[in-house]
């Protein structure tokens, strides 16, 4: 059994009892105060495979809680159990054990999923429908009245940048367009909880940036977002908390802020020689051309270095991440998993 590295999560920013005004709608959705958006306890799932239907463990003993209003990331390499965990949360596959509650309600109750918007990995929709028709179909499943549909659907199409392709059949959509219409149908009904399985996969750099900005906007509006990814920088840019999965087990759960403290940064600056004295003693320095690259261990040291630079009028060329705390942890947990197997 791998040891779970578990730092107590920080208090959620603004746990709320009601969401802001709905996207394009006038309704205010209420969520019970103090209840986690998602609570997963000891979730287990087995698979049967091969001719002899041999039992294989998919995920084992996964437990975590997601407070309302945060962005929570599930990080793991391919096959780590991210999609299986999400499928169990949404009762798309039945868990072999454990408990899942969505805003305090058992996940097996269909009504519990009324507050959830879901984007599957590799989204595939009815090809005979157009983007607009797909959104209308999804709105029907949410019992949305026609007036609200007429207001919300064009807004969502604009949000995901598919206004012009709205009446094209989905069979003509590119992979990126399918990803965006998938995100659009997840946003329909202004759900309090978004569960997105690899939301940035299949998108070009522009698309990735658009999705990132969209998710940041939703986070700012107090939505709870759970997304899976195997791309560390995406998680660093978006998430408040991260859970790392390895071989079907949750091996770490951290607030991102804690991990950023151990990130190694690098400040690139042009420093006049007469202003580069003993103050930089103890720092690791390298020189490239006319610039000095100074390493800072953690956010606090980086802040100190930038303050020093401002005082001494260095010309700062850039600040970068040399080694991310999350990446380091991810690699560390992966190596531990491989060593034990």
């Amino acid at each position, binding site marked *: 059994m791998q040891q779970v590295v578990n730092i107590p999560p920080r208090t959620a920013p603004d746990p709320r009892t009601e969401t802001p005004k709905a996207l394009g709608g006038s309704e205010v959705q209420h969520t019970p105060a103090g209840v986690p958006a998602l609570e997963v306890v000891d979730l287990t799932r087995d698979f049967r495979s091969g001719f002899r239907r041999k039992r294989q463990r998919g995920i084992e003993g996964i437990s975590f809680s997601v407070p309302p209003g945060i962005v929570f990331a599930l990080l793991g390499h391919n096959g780590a159990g991210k999609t299986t965990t999400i*499928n169990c949360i949404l009762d798309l596959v039945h868990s072999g054990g454990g408990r899942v509650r969505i805003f305090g309600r058992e996940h097996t109750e269909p009504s519990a999923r009324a507050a959830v918007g*879901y984007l599957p990995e590799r989204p595939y929709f009815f090809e005979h429908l157009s983007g607009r028709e797909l959104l209308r179909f999804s709105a029907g*499943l*949410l019992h949305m009245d026609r007036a609200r549909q007429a207001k919300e659907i064009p807004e969502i199409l604009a949000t995901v940048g598919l206004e012009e392709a709205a009446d094209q059949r989905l069979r003509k959509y590119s992979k990126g367009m399918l990803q965006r219409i998938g995100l659009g149908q997840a946003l329909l009904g202004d759900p309090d909880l978004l569960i997105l399985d690899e939301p940035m996969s299949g998108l070009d750099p522009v698309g990735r940036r658009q999705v990132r900005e969209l998710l940041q906007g939703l986070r700012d509006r107090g939505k709870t977002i759970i997304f899976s990814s195997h791309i560390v920088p995406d998680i660093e840019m978006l998430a408040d908390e991260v859970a790392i999965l390895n071989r079907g087990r949750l091996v770490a759960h951290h607030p991102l802020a804690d991990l950023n403290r151990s990130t190694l940064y690098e400040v690139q600056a042009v420093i006049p020689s007469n202003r580069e004295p003993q103050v930089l003693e103890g720092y690791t320095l390298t020189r490239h051309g006319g610039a000095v690259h100074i390493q800072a261990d953690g956010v606090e040291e980086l802040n100190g270095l930038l303050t020093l630079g401002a005082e001494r009028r260095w010309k700062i060329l850039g600040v970068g991440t040399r080694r991310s705390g999350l990446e380091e942890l991810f690699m560390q947990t992966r190596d531990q998993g491989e060593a034990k197997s």
Partner: protein
Amino acid sequence: MMGTLTTLAYGTFRETVRDRLFYLVGIFGFIMLASTAVLSPLTIGAQSKIMVDVGLAAMAAFGLLVVVLVGSNMIRKEMDKGTIVTILARPVGRRQYLIGKFLGLNLTLACMLALMGGLFSLVLLVAPGTFSPAYLGAIYMALLEMVVINAVVVLFSTCVSAPLAAVATLGVFLIGHLSQSIRDFGDMQGTPLQQKIFAGLYYLVPNLEVFNIRGAVVHGDPIALAQFGIATVYCLGYAALLVILAGAVFRGKGLR
């Protein structure tokens, strides 16, 4: 509940209407009906009987083709392609989903039979001028039969692959029309064990002859109204039972 069912049923209806296969079968059905008008002059003295017989049989055959081809793929395709997950991640129960799909295909069948029945009636009115309201009764009975077959294919498609569901449904269709004969054969010829097996088969498989009034209609025999009532109750009861059973099977199914 009703909103969800309506959405799912209409979604299924729209999918089948936009399905090229459905159009091909529909066009083929209409061609068959039209061909009866061409063939009937060759059968002196029995024109209307031939037209009615061939027309009703063609409608039943194309209805069966649509149920088996579309029905066996309807749920399995969504499971294989993954479209089902975005539906069931919504506040939609699995039983609701199945009922919605079942109702949607029934709606397709009803529309298809109505269109074919309309054309059939028009041909009869125009050509020999021997239209009888009993023909509409036969079309209604064909629809009831297709509803039962639809429930059978929904049940099979939750358990086995699409081709296997199609074959099994055709098997039920055949046995369903021969069930009385099979039972009688067992009673007359079989050992006690065989008799029990044939009797079991008789009760297990729907008796589709309940819906077959084509012969009587063609020959102008009277049909009691009670027969329509019995057939309707039998159809609804049997179909409900099968859909409930399909729901129980589907509830335990992993979708990814």
